[in-house]
């Protein structure tokens, strides 16, 4: 029993990583209507920027917020320069561009900072929380950050005019232009926000998995699983989905002997397939109701 509780708590703490990544995935999905496969790599690059700033002697929290700001702007620039010209191109063109972006960013990071593994500091310290060995201070801090982010997004979407304009642009772009919303800038804003959230996720993940150009590869898969499980259109669902994936992965790794440590990643993929087959909208995704 004790082992079970321990594994659940450990699952929740890894789940908070996935939750954070899932949140970034949902953000871009809400803004542009499809997934950005380069999201993980963009987050990794942001984290390298933070690492560079810290190495230059910038205090952690200054570097933290500076990185968020830089990432926000970079996200907007990427949309303006690369994706706006694609505009109404078929979705496949976008996918190809995502993959190009993914490889370019990975190589650029490797070129600038090389492929050796770097440690990334945690603002919360790595000591066990309250002396218990179940969860570390960093993991607890990460959960708090994820929840703050979720709350901020909720308020942004629900209670601000810009949030409403963003939702409307995704819902009905033609009609949105007719009420005066600058839809193309809303898409850019969505990119900026998604990149900023990705940066937070990256900086939270890096102390756990160490910093290197491929650090987000596995995590992004888990993040996708969390987002799909929770429902791609629901920020709250994505966070919960992330936690559930973390717990399931940990429990399966511990209690199902065949799976062990090596097959853990498969679980994320199994979750994606199961959800898509059984409940494509995810647990909390909006089942769009429409009169015909």
């Amino acid at each position, binding site marked *: 029993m004790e082992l079970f509780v321990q594994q659940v708590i450990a699952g929740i703490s890894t789940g908070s990583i996935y939750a954070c990544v899932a949140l970034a995935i949902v953000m871009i999905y809400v803004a542009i209507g499809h997934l950005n496969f380069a999201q993980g790599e963009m987050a990794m690059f942001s984290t390298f920027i933070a690492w560079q700033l810290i190495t230059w002697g910038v205090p952690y929290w200054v570097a933290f917020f500076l990185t968020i700001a830089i990432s926000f702007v970079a996200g907007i620039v990427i949309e303006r320069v690369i994706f706006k010209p694609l505009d109404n191109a078929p979705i496949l063109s976008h996918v190809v561009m995502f993959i190009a972006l993914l490889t370019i960013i990975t190589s650029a990071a490797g070129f600038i900072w090389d492929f050796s593994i770097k440690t990334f500091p945690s603002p919360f310290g790595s000591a066990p929380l309250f002396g218990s060995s179940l969860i570390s201070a960093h993991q607890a801090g990460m959960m708090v950050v994820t929840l703050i982010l979720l709350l901020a997004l909720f308020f942004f979407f629900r209670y601000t005019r810009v949030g409403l304009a963003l939702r409307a642009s995704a819902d009905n772009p033609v009609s*949105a232009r007719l*009420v005066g919303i600058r839809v193309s800038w809303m898409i850019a804003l969505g990119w900026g926000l998604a990149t900023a959230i990705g940066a937070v996720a990256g900086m939270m993940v890096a102390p756990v998995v160490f910093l290197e150009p491929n650090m987000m590869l596995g995590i992004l898969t888990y993040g996708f699983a969390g987002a799909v499980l929770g429902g791609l259109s629901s920020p709250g669902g994505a966070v919960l989905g992330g936690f559930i994936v973390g717990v399931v992965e940990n429990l399966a790794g511990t209690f199902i002997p065949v799976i062990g440590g090596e097959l853990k990643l498969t679980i994320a993929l199994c979750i994606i397939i199961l959800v898509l087959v059984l409940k494509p909208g995810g647990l909390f995704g*909006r089942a769009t109701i*429409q009169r015909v």
Partner: protein
Amino acid sequence: MTKLLEVKGLHAGYGQTKVLHGIDFSIDEGSVTTLLGANGAGKTTTLRALCGMIRRSGDILLSGEQINRKQTEDIVRVGVAHVPDGRGTFTRQTVEENLQLGAMARSDKAGIAQDLELVFSYFPILKERRTQQAGLLSGGEQQMLAVGRALMLRPKLMLLDEPSFGLAPMITREIFEIFRELNRKEKVSMLVVEQNAQIALELADQAYLLETGRIVFSGRADDIRDDENLRKAYLGY
């Protein structure tokens, strides 16, 4: 009477296909003008061209100001509200959010709140359903919502694209009654595009007949209504 909108030599189309071949028309301040014609005559295209949703050339003057180079988003800001065909509902947002979206181009909070109440006074059903997902409304209710959304701009000119489309005759009548009231009480000028010529001519002061991208007749709505030959030839009733 002063002209609110003046259109001269308007050409427009989709890609290689030209639909409008240089049409001229104008709308008097405070009046209701209707643009009639069969399927494919270019009625919807005219409205789209006015709003910059498609490529167009020619003069479009709103209160004397040239707007033919303005983007769709900016044409809204000079006071032209477009109720598009298909009603343009934001199906996943609530009824009230749909109305708030209509006021996106404004920033006077108090005025917006006031106009929300005004819309609810014209369309009480929308108040009842304010928290509902807009996609769940019936066709007639969605048409009311679209008109309400346009009103939230407090527009000088409202462009209405086939407001009767897909509605039961009784609902159509009710909605056209409200148009009349809006025109009289709120001083909104309107350009109504319709296939249902009969009801449009009852509402309108001025009418234009459009046939394959050209205006073939213009005059007072009453005159067209009384001219049996014209009615039979172009409007089929």
